[in-house]
């Protein structure tokens, strides 16, 4: 179906090299996390893959199609929820459809079937300021999903949430993806989150980032927070911690 391939991508900002010669791929319906310390260029990497910034060198492919510097072909969810405060939840979620030229009513009709699945039923006519952080994040995720349902790039989607809400949303996301079957590339600095959610973890070294290690996560699914205490989980965590250094 949909597969992302990143080939020899390098990028620098003036005076700082962000990452050098990164190559990896995310298979169709696979969940891959990119794990790295803060400031190692994870967000920039997602900007490159989503096409909003051009890399200094290297290419990004969607299946066999070269999508380097071509925005709009994959879904991208930024770190903050970035919901528009003047639009209701329903209108916010329908934004990618409005941008594609659909009428407000059509966009709303397309959003409605997903509201229950994303735990937003009954809140669709509220404004973002009236929702909890977790709900806003779920609304932003649904908006991302509706832009392109087959491939999503998520930039620390739960980073701004408190620990309890974060864990609940992580478990919810694993269950959700059993239903949606989307290819996901997630960026995080949270080792537990990466292990809990992923099929594979790509560990990045500090700046300039290179791939330090690729960790397959073969914990049984469906996963839940309790697995964090299992010996297999802790073994993976130890390896990830080691690779981060």
């Amino acid at each position, binding site marked *: 179906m949909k597969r992302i391939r990143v080939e020899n991508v390098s990028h620098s900002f003036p005076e700082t090299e962000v990452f050098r010669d990164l190559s990896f791929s995310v298979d169709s319906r696979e969940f891959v996390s990119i794990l790295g310390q803060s400031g190692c260029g994870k967000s920039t990497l997602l*900007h490159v893959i*989503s*096409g*909003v910034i051009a890399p200094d060198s290297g290419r990004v492919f969607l299946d066999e199609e070269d999508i380097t510097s071509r*925005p*709009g072909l994959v879904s*991208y969810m*930024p770190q*903050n929820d*970035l919901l*528009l*405060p*003047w*639009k209701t939840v329903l209108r916010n979620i329908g*934004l*990618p459809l*409005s*941008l594609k030229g659909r009428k407000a009513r059509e966009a709303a009709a397309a959003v409605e079937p997903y509201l229950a699945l994303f735990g937003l039923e009954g*809140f669709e006519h509220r*404004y973002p*300021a*009236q*929702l*909890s*952080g*977790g*709900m806003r994040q779920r609304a932003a995720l649904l908006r991302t999903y509706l*832009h392109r349902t087959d491939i999503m790039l998520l930039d620390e989607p739960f980073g701004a*949430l408190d620990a*309890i*809400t974060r864990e*609940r*949303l992580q478990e919810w996301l694993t269950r959700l993806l059993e239903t949606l079957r989307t290819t996901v590339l997630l960026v995080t600095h949270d080792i537990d989150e990466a292990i809990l959610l992923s099929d594979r973890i790509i560990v990045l070294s500090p700046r300039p980032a290179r791939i330090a290690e690729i960790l397959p996560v073969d914990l049984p699914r469906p996963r839940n927070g309790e697995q964090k205490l299992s010996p297999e989980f802790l073994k993976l965590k130890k390896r990830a911690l080691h690779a981060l250094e």
Partner: protein
Amino acid sequence: MKKKSGNISKWLIPLAAGLAFVLIWQLAGGAGLVSPYILPPPLRVAASLAEDVPLLVQHAAVTFVTSVAGLAAAVALALLMCLAMDLWPAFKKAVYPYMVISQTIPIIFIYPVIMMGLGFGLAPKIAVVTLVCFFPIGVNLSDGLAQTDPELLLLFRSMKASRWKTILLLKLPGALPAFFSGLKIAAAYSVIGAVISEWLGAQAGLGVYMIRASKSFVLSRVFAGILVVVALSLGLFAVVLAAERVFLSWKFITNHKENKS
């Protein structure tokens, strides 16, 4: 209950202070402390106001039309200019400094020039109001557009939003609070702008009424005119406040959050 009493004191305290001020003014006049030719006592102002109601309504209508037309023209002009400045940064660089300079021009001296261009009718008066109102609206709207969250712009770019859709769905609604800040200032100034232009040469309007009263030394009528100017300005301001409540309703919702993740 507590909120209600808060609302009452919100109105009651300034109202009581105003009444006290008027009362002292009246008493000072009655006691002969202030000459009625310099500062006419409030009761005499009220009498003049009552006497001249038909005349004042006539003049106020002219001033009102001038103010609203000028304000509307300023909004339209500011919108066009700011959109153009947002679309073409070079245009902004070329125009922005002159937008500021436009506000520093002493209207009194260029009014004859405006009148030579636009004649003796309402047009030059409306032009003066537009000149006065354009600046606060234009500067606020332009800043509002420029302050669009860069992360949101990036998000829109990632969704391949067209330039036009980005303006319509992101930049303009985001700049609306700033626009209304400017519009509130402009609404309060617009009536004064109209009165000044009438002062400088007109056949009708509150400016004309007041200058006639002042030249015949009937100060109580000048004050009656001032009262009408104040009332008109406050009225326009209130209309803008009401419009703000409608267009920015999302800002006025109670920020009551649900305790559900």
